[in-house]
């Protein structure tokens, strides 16, 4: 028996989910253990040290670096306003003094008598952290952040664009293999997480953005459309910081590929519910996948059914994830143990897949992922 490769995508109708919300530096946590929070509620806030502006005061005043300290009007630790004089030359017999006015507001951090450089720190930058997912605060790390726990339905996508957002789940298609086009996007989708079936087209993304949808989820999309949406050819798969006005998540891959029935049905069950979504993706060591989190009632007695892959066994359903059969669904028919020479000339361990048409094909074991139909 062999373990099938899956990208480790999690799709579950119920699980305990906790999300750690942390400030980048110490600050104020505004909630306490046991508090109920909603997704867009601010749970912690602080001020980041401002930007640093080095000022080469020796050059600016045309004096030797060692003289700068004595010519400073504002000393280390002192606050200055934009346009305020911070240093002044001695002049000639007390006349013809030259002043230097600060180009920025901030605080004088250091004055160096070696380089004549003054480090001016800009005003503090406010940072706010939202709860992101509706739930209950279960842990508070003083001055750092908190943990929000909820019972959720959880779906990991395979690739996404854009950061955290939340909205109501609304369907724009009737079936998991239906392509999402602009004509399916309606005005009442404003603020919604819009669900498509198979491929998301570029005009549907544009239309969804126009009507104010917060996110769009579909089975696949064309890379050419992604390039047009982003305005550049995406090279390295590190996303999440794009400011495109909408978060886009594909659950299966690139091209014309239907959303897995299990994912589609799960989302359908929760149409009208609030969902928190994040398109951030990192395909490197320490992989990060986009996610759709749907908080559900904690009282519901339904048991968790999780699906994360498993072992290749005869009869199991799978999808082929590489050309020439990309996206085709079938079942394991045979698992020959001996390596097989592929059409490419390479030798690899393979399996025989029976397609829905009744036809059988040989595929490398590395090129399939198990699915639940």
């Amino acid at each position, binding site marked *: 028996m062999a373990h099938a490769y899956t990208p480790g995508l999690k799709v579950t109708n119920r699980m305990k989910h906790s999300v750690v919300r942390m400030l980048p530096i110490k600050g104020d946590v505004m909630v306490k253990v046991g508090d109920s929070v909603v997704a867009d509620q601010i749970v912690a806030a602080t001020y980041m040290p401002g930007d*640093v502006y080095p000022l080469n005061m020796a050059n600016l005043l045309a004096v030797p670096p060692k003289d700068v300290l004595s010519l400073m009007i504002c000393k280390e630790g002192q606050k200055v306003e934009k346009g305020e004089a911070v240093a002044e030359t001695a002049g000639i017999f007390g006349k013809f003094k030259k002043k230097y006015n600060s180009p920025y507001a901030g605080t004088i951090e250091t004055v160096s008598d070696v*380089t004549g450089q003054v480090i001016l720190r800009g005003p503090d930058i406010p940072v706010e952290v939202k709860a992101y997912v509706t739930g209950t605060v279960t842990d508070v790390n003083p001055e750092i952040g908190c943990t929000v726990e909820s019972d959720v339905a959880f779906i990991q996508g395979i690739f996404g664009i854009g950061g955290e957002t939340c909205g109501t789940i609304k369907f724009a298609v009737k079936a998991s293999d239906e392509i999402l086009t602009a004509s399916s996007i309606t005005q009442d989708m404003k603020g919604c997480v819009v669900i498509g079936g198979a491929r998301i087209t570029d005009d549907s993304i544009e239309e969804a953005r126009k009507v104010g949808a917060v996110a769009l989820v579909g089975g696949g999309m064309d890379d050419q459309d992604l390039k047009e949406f982003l305005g550049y050819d995406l090279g390295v*798969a590190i996303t999440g910081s794009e400011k495109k006005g909408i978060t886009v998540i594909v659950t299966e891959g*690139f091209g014309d590929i239907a959303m897995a029935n299990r994912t589609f049905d799960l989302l359908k069950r929760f149409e009208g519910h609030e969902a928190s979504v994040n398109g951030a993706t990192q*395909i490197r*060591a320490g992989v990060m996948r986009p996610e759709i989190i749907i908080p559900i009632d904690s009282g519901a007695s339904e048991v968790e059914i999780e699906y994360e892959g498993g072992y290749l066994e005869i009869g199991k359903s799978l999808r082929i994830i590489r050309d*020439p059969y990309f996206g085709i669904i079938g079942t394991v028919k045979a698992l020959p143990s001996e390596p097989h020479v592929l059409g*490419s*000339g390479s030798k690899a361990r393979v399996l025989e897949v029976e397609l829905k048409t009744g036809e059988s094909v040989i595929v490398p074991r590395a090129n399939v992922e198990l699915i639940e139909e």
Partner: protein
Amino acid sequence: MTIDLENISVILATDCGSTTTKAILIEKIDGQYRQTYRGEAPTTVEKPFANVTIGVTNAVTEISELAGRKLTNEDGTINQPAQGDDGCDLYISTSSAGGGLQMMVAGVIAEMTAASAKRAALGAGAIVMDVISTNDKRRPHEQIQRIRELRPDMILISGGTDGGTTEKVVQLAELIAPAKPQPRFGSEYEMPIIFAGNKMAASEVESTLQEDWIDLAIVENLRPKLEQENLGPARDKIHDVFLEHVMAHAPGYDMLMDWSDAPIMPTPGAVGDILQTIAKKENINVVGVDIGGATTDVFSVFEGTFNRTVSANLGMSYSISNVCAEATMPNVLRWVHFDMDERQLRNRVKNKMIRPTTIPQSLESLIFEQAVAREALRLAYKQHKEFATTLKGVQQQRTVGDTFSQQTGGNTIVNNMTLNLLVASGGVLSHAPSMNQTAMMLVDAFEPEGCTDLAKDSIFMMPHLGVLSAVHPEAAAQVFERDCLVYLGTCIAAKGLGKLGKPCFSWTLSGDVNASGTCNFGDLECIDMAPDQTATILCEPARGFDLGAGNGKKVSHEVRGGTVGLIIDGRGRPLGLPEDRQQCQMSMKTWVENMALYEEIDVAVATA
């Protein structure tokens, strides 16, 4: 510890990669060191194991089973010394697990001290995340912002020749101190900063960097004079800090360091060492490449000068999309001899990126991946040539005679005409279904000129041999020569351009193989020469072509055979493919057929 080299008969070496730990066994057979067995297992630095030695034990256990030699004790430790058919005499290891060594470097001038600092860091096996210099066109607050965002394992500061600028060097330190970069190993980690700049500025730098989160080390200036680099002390310090700080924070490495009889080296540093050893021993110029899923490393040794570059986003799985974005799809497709749908290809590339472990099943898919590999290698080598230069900023004395032939400093030292050996490693090159495919990927991407031997690392054992060369150079050299390198053959290629079909050079081969012919411009052919065969080739280039002796001048080379044979390349250098797509496909089709690249597979069926 002292190692008695005379009594070493069994050597065990491991390389702990990001995903796989590879172990090899070297045994002394009839007085010669030979690599005998190999085992591998997943690397175990991540949870739930979080201990690198578990992966090492698993890989070594595989060898034990294959070799029938008990190499581990009951508690999982290495069984030493060898007694009869059990144990080993020497255990060594390299590592790039956990993302390897990530560094940030800084220097006063980008092209001078900062470039030298980058060379020192790369030579030590690091990934250089960014280079900060006073002339990098970023404003100081932007530089500080960048330093804040990075999470390096250590920082190397250079700048100023000895007795040169102090002020600019201290300014660099003043950028780093307020930025307070966050190390990736958490806030408890003291950031190691190595200062290797103007010795007169050392005390000022020390006082500027007096912070409780900094662990400052001061070493000799890596550029004491503009015309002199002294990278050794900085490289050694980087290795020390790597072991003391970075490795010490990686799970299980304290145990692994105890097991190992020699210091653990970063994997690319070890590969660089073995290539330097071989270049020195054979007195040749060598280029080596290792193409992985995410990155491509290029190493070169020309006239004894070693350089290494890491192209961080050029690779065949995680980075395949970036290769296509950087090279552009038309440049990738020029290596494909039939029509392909670009929209569909773009989706395939992205699907490979998000599912990096899939493999090409169809011939069409393999041909496309090998086309991408050519572009990844070409771009990585281009970056390498731009980086491996003579020292910039060196004052030159000129005479009137130099008026029309003036050269500035900073010219690349990589010279394809004087390159003797090109070594390939990495999945797409090592696992290509035919050796001819590997050879042609190398020739098309690196464009060797004159006479160049082609070889590949049989089972990616260069890292192991690199660390072994530091402990037992003789054993490393013997295994490298006999078991590591698989010679593909020799490439004879003329530099220059001409008209298609017109004579490029004539050649006569005498020795174990006797043959002669004329190579026209645009021709590419392969002469059978077995791995144990050698011959002398006498070449007479046409006007405008150079095979090593100058324009149109006769030259003879000693050539060796290999699994591919002798490649006679008359396509000219620089290698330019026809711009017209149809014409390009026709040329590629002829070359593919002449080199028998995909002969055992019916292309028509595969592409239908």
